[in-house]
């Protein structure tokens, strides 16, 4: 044979022999498989921790990560660009809840079920993980149950009854499932909460170091007085504890007792809610932070029942691109409190601005108001960041031609710590609070008033809130209806911009307030001072609200995906 033939035969030989080596086996090295994760207690507990990632845990969240709050859906605020290129608010305020870009509808629906899947997968694997003494499976289970309750609560609050899953469906499983009823959903959540509470309140175990460890207490170590001699678990601050479970249950019961879900006004439902609040009060773990204006900026507080733990924020994201306008060195000031909200702040004598004897001067409207007014809002002629805010026509801070500046002549101070201005790098904490004690008190007062009328306990707890704010007590002798109005007003002021107002208005079925003409302040500079005029905002910023919106529609895509099994809410 000639050389080339030999070479050819040799080559063929090489090819044939090398075929054995699984030439096509090229997939990346050693992927982590399901078996790896759930046979390793560390990885498994990390998988459990991932379930926390689905919580709704910041103020701005409707668009681009950090823009748009629920307050902008109602009378609390508007989005200056609501009608412009950022439709994240207008999609709700114009009733387009079925639009796929309505993040609070379709986005939340998807995100909650993702969280629920994470929880369900974890729960189904609990028994197969070889846990060691470093983990406590019961605690993991309790957290999973809490998170599942939280996710289902976010769903039931928006949509009513939804598909209840206590197992993660497999690929082959039929997932075109009918919705459970509202009651079934509430019961499902209650059951999870009860189980979680039982674990949290009873679980005590001994660490390998010999320390006795009680997560319910020790996870709140940052708030313990006196601080523990030996740190056990301050690194777990921010995880749910009994308080978190109870606060979530209270929210659910408040929803369940409110007109939206309790049209007959059954007192028993309110009493159940009041009892749930009282349990938290009686636990004596929580108290009000003395300084209302620093509420969001604490690393820990007795008022916090559960917060999203997050480091100090730098100037960027939510601050520079959502809260702080160009006139203060930010890019966009899209969160503009309304005149409607401003008008809810009483005078510091405890009288509403339109009440006789309040002393309210429409031409000096920012004088002598509820101290919380000054904590929550930025308004004309306020000295802010070493200069006077100019909200008047032609002023630096009012540039209506630019889409990204205020339309109402207010900005939100609560979410804008004063150190944040253009060109700075300093940061402070600005916590998103899941539950705080102040809410428990006002929930208690509200529920008690609905159940038993304005008895003294109602006054006690509302006045606790008012006292902390620096406001006089409520006048005595209020009727139940008057008390209700005062509590509703108190909540609007106390919880301003804390993602509570919109849900309150929905559960109260308060369409009038949601639909009310949205007003702005018109400020004109004169030779001697300013003139103030309350004016309605253009139609663009007004609300298009119909009663069907008290309960969100199931995202249209989900109905379309279903073969007629998933039913839409009434009216949608």
């Amino acid at each position, binding site marked *: 044979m000639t050389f080339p033939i030999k*070479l050819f035969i040799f080559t063929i030989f090489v*090819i044939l022999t090398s075929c054995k080596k699984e030439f096509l086996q090229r*997939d990346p090295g050693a992927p982590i498989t399901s078996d790896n994760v759930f046979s390793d207690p560390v990885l498994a507990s990390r998988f459990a921790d991932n379930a926390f990632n689905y919580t709704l845990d910041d103020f701005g969240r409707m668009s681009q990560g950090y823009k748009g709050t629920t307050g902008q859906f109602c009378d609390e605020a508007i989005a200056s660009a609501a009608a412009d290129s950022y439709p994240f608010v207008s999609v709700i305020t114009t009733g387009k809840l079925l639009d796929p870009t309505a993040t609070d509808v379709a986005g939340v629906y998807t995100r909650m079920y993702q969280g629920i899947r994470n929880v369900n997968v974890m729960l189904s694997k609990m028994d197969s993980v070889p846990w060691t003494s470093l983990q406590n499976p019961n605690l993991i289970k309790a957290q999973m149950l809490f998170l599942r309750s939280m996710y289902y609560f976010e769903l039931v609050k928006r949509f009513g009854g939804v598909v209840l899953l206590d197992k993660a469906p497999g690929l082959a499983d039929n997932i075109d499932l009918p919705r459970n009823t509202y009651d079934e959903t509430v019961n499902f959540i209650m059951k999870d909460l009860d189980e979680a509470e039982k674990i949290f309140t009873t679980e005590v175990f001994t660490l390998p170091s010999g320390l006795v460890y009680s997560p319910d207490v020790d996870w709140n170590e940052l708030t313990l007085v006196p601080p523990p001699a030996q740190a056990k678990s301050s690194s777990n601050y921010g995880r749910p504890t009994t308080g978190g479970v109870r606060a979530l249950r209270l929210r659910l019961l408040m929803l369940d007792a409110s007109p939206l879900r309790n049209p007959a006004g059954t007192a028993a439902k309110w009493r159940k809610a009041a009892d749930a609040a009282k349990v938290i009060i009686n636990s004596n773990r929580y108290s009000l932070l003395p300084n209302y204006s620093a509420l969001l900026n604490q690393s820990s507080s007795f008022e916090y029942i559960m917060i999203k733990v997050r480091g100090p924020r730098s100037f960027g*994201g939510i601050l520079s691109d959502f809260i702080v306008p160009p006139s203060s060195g930010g890019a966009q000031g899209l969160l503009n409190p309304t005149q409607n909200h401003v008008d809810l702040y009483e005078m510091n004598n405890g009288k509403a601005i339109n009440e006789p004897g309040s002393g309210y001067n429409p031409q000096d409207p920012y004088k002598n108001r509820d101290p919380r007014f000054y904590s929550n809002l930025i308004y004309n002629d306020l000295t802010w960041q070493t200069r006077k805010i100019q909200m008047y026509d032609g002023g630096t801070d009012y540039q209506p031609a630019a889409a990204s500046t205020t339309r109402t002549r207010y900005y939100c101070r609560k979410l804008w710590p004063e150190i944040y201005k253009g060109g700075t790098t300093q940061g402070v904490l600005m916590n998103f609070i899941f539950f705080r004690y102040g809410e428990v008190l006002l929930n208690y007062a509200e529920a008690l008033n609905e159940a038993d009328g304005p008895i003294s306990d109602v006054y006690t707890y509302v006045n606790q809130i008012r006292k902390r704010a620096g406001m006089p007590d409520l006048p005595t002798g209020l009727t139940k209806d008057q008390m209700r109005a005062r509590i509703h007003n108190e909540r609007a002021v106390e919880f301003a911009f804390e993602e509570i107002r919109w849900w309150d208005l929905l559960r109260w079925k308060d369409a009038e307030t949601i639909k009310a003409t949205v007003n702005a302040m018109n400020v004109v500079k004169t030779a001697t001072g300013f003139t103030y005029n309350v004016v309605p905002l253009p139609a663009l910023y007004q609300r298009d609200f119909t009663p069907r919106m008290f309960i969100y529609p199931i995202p249209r895509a989900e109905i379309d995906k279903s073969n007629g099994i998933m039913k839409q809410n009434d009216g949608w």
Partner: protein
Amino acid sequence: MNNCLFCFCLLSASFSAFSQQNRITGKIRSAEDSTLLNGVSVSVKGTRVGVTSDKDGAFNINAKGGSTLVFSYIGYNDREVKVGSGNYMSVRLSAGNNNLNTVVVIGYGTQKKKEQTAAISTISGKDIVKSPVSDATNSLVGRVPGLFSQQRSGLPGDNGADIFIRGRASTNSAALIIVDGVERQGFGDIDPNEIEAISILKDASSTALFGIKGANGVIIVTTKGGKVGKAKVSYSGNLSQVRSTELPQFLDAYRSAFLHNEAEENLIKYNLVPPGYKKLFTPEDLETFKNKTGDPLLYPDINWYKALTRPSWNKTQHNLNFTGGSRMTKYFVSVGYLFEDGMFKEFKTPSGYKTTPTYTRYNFRSNLDFTITKTTTLSLRLAGRLENRYSPVGNQTQGNLFNRQRGGIGGLVSRITAIPAWGLPFFPEYTNPTTPEMKQLDETYNQVEDIGKLGVNTFNPYGLLKRAGYVTTDNNAIESVFVLDQKLDQLLKGLSAKVTFAYDAYISGGRVQTGSFAGYELNRATKALTVSRGSFEDALNAPGTFRSGYIKTNLQAGLNYNKQMGDHNITAVFLGQRELRGAEGAQAPFANEGVVLRMTYNYKSKYFFEINGSYNGSENYPKTERYGLFPAVSGGWTVTEEKFMKNIRFLNYMKIRGSYGLIGYGNVGGTRFLFLDEYSNGGGTTGTGGGLTPINNQAQFGNPLSLNNNPVVWHSKAGNPLVTWEKSIKRNIGFETNSFNNRLSVNVDLFDEKRYDILLPKNNSAPAVYGETQPFSNYGENSNKGYEVEVNYHETKGNWKYGFNAQITHAENKVVRTDEPLNLAANLKNTGYAIGQFRGYQFIGFYQSLDEINKSPQSRVGTQVIPGDLKYQDTNGDGIIDDQDRVAIGNADIPQNVFGIEPNVGWKGFNVSVLLQGANNVSANVQFDGNGRNQYYEQMFDRWTPDNPLNAKWPVMRTGSTGGNPSYVTNSFLLQNAAYVKLRNIELSYMLPKVLLKKIRIESVRIYFNGQNLKTWTKFVGLDPENAISSSLGTDVGFLNNPVFSYPVTKIYNVGLNIQF
């Protein structure tokens, strides 16, 4: 080598013929330049007698008087000459493609055109160099039937055409590229002077050998080899002037301010702005703009596009190659250089970088063929490439450097196009400062920004260009192919073996340096400028660099069999191949291997039958699903070989052929290993800017001032263990005819395709309660069908030579099954429509009054409608106009029909060819809105006003900054017809007479003028219609300043010179 095989057959055939004959001798020349042609096959018609011409173009054959000699040569038309009384013939062959004996490169081999049963088109290197383009993909446009293309950008180094063979049967529609027998990632960066020919394989029969990769068609590029003969040196040089084909028409300050003012008046009138809204301009301001008497600082009138770009720029290209060979060795050695400049003006930058993007490329190639023994040949194809792409970094701070180049320029152009003439001042006299005083002026007066007027993110484009920095990337490639061919006649007559080994190495690297610059705010009252943003850091930041690369090997070994037994001709190819291509970064390499088989049979060159098939697999699939079988059958019948056809004199040739087969496509949008089910460990950390915690973030607990970031584990990939490739069943029927003495040829192909098992996620069809994205699965299905017609006509009369090539292709695809909700409203379903079909609101008129608005269905599109806005059809009749009312409008984003016609005329040394190319049934959603920055365009003057209520060409004016404009969503009024006809290419050339050149020992000199994209006829307004084809089919009107199409497509005027020694 191909020639050898072919000659070999003919030579052996010639021995079998014997009769009483005359000896005919002669010389064969090219009709164009009278060069002597070496290797022309000369045969006696109706017999198997044949010889080939030698290197002096001479031949010597025995033929009966009265018989006909057939001359055929690659790239030339066949010529038939009757043997007369004389024994000497001087034959001239004219260039063309009609030759049935042309050897065409197909998958893993070659085949004569007349033996083909598959649908294959070819284009010669000669035609490719007619287009003075830097990216060879653009040369194919309009010259090959079945080929759809779009050139979307003119950015130097990134201006190739997207190619779709026979349209689009799947969203994954990239064709497979083979260069010199080996798969490559592209061919656009090969020096066009190196290309011998390109074959486009279109049907099942021709692509079955590529199995899992072949379903989108295959483009086979063959580079030039040496030819036996004395050494030839050839130089070609080109000098081009490049211009943009079409630019949007910007308004001057007055006209733009006038429209803005009207827009603001409309908003005030309809209460769409907050109380106290002050218009941007007073009547006096407008008057000042009109009279152009304003202070240029306060009343700028700047066409930013013109301010920063130049009307034309240059491109140069040089190639020098040496070719020749002996019986033992043949060589083709080529060196090429290309430089392409960019459109931005060259401003002096403080840190010394250039402000215009450029593309520089060096190509090197050495193709050698050695005849080692009588039976052994070795071929070597060695090519190298050095590419540099340079650009100012513009406005892109993220992503890899290649994306930053593209995106950064896009961001820059978008800032330029967005700023109205009255938006920002600019003083060209301060640019390129020479003194500190001027520098000071340049840094302030030319750096003004105005968020209040123009919206956020409106950086000063001059600042972006001059101070944001630069990015430069290098791409180096070495591509080599070694082919050893061994005849094995001693084992079995007709058997030969071939081993191919390819080794490619790619290295890319780059550097980016960014700088920051200050924005100044202008106080209109005091004219004072104060810093509003950033600062100048004229020393650029420390460079960021990257380097990456991979190696690719390919091995093929197999047997060829070629046997003639009486009237029966058999060939067979059987080979195994495997390929390993490294991935950049830490990814697993790409691997594929398999065996291919082709068997052909023909009887008397009349009836043809062919089987093609491959059994191959890829690393991308689970162990059990890795390999697939892809068979195809085809057949042909040369009708003109039948006796009953002999009477039809005008018809020289007619063949009917058909093919049927199954092909695969396995590359799904870069997502690999879809069968793997994976978890990931770790997780991101929340940015300090806030917002919802991103999914898969580390869980944060503990003291917020000393956070504990707890790593998490998440299900990062849902695997589908049954995942497999896309499959395609293709059918093709073709008719080929040559008539009128081979002057006219007409080819017609009818094709259809069923593409199924398309890998899709269930993002839109699986209920969200599942809780995560379901894995990709094979359930999509599309169909595609159409036809191609190609007509060639060539005539030589004395010194005149003329003819044309014309072609039309129609391909229409339809989505049969895709990822859509089960009960999606019919008007929203893509099923039944073409891939890329536009969907939007159906325009039914303008709202003429508030009264009409109130009486019409409620509009929930964008913000509140006002008179003059577009009124849309309430498709589902629910009394509300919202996204549920959208319907299919216009066409898809790639054309359904393309055509090209290229007439040419030659007289002596002169030659003219003109290529007109067009496309229709295509839409583009690019329109001119202000994109939040208050830009206005010429066409907006035909806007709706109460005085122009019916014939308006544009909706009522609203300011750019109100966004949410209900009229600026994709709708049938604004969707543009992107059909066009382009003067795609023109070439005028002159070959200097030989007599002049002989004295200076130059063989030939050819000078030419050619041009590309010189003229476009289209209804499309504002941009080049190809440039404007958006890659996004979203509900918004495509912004003019979308980076995808922001760098204008170019036209090229070129002069060139070609000298051969």
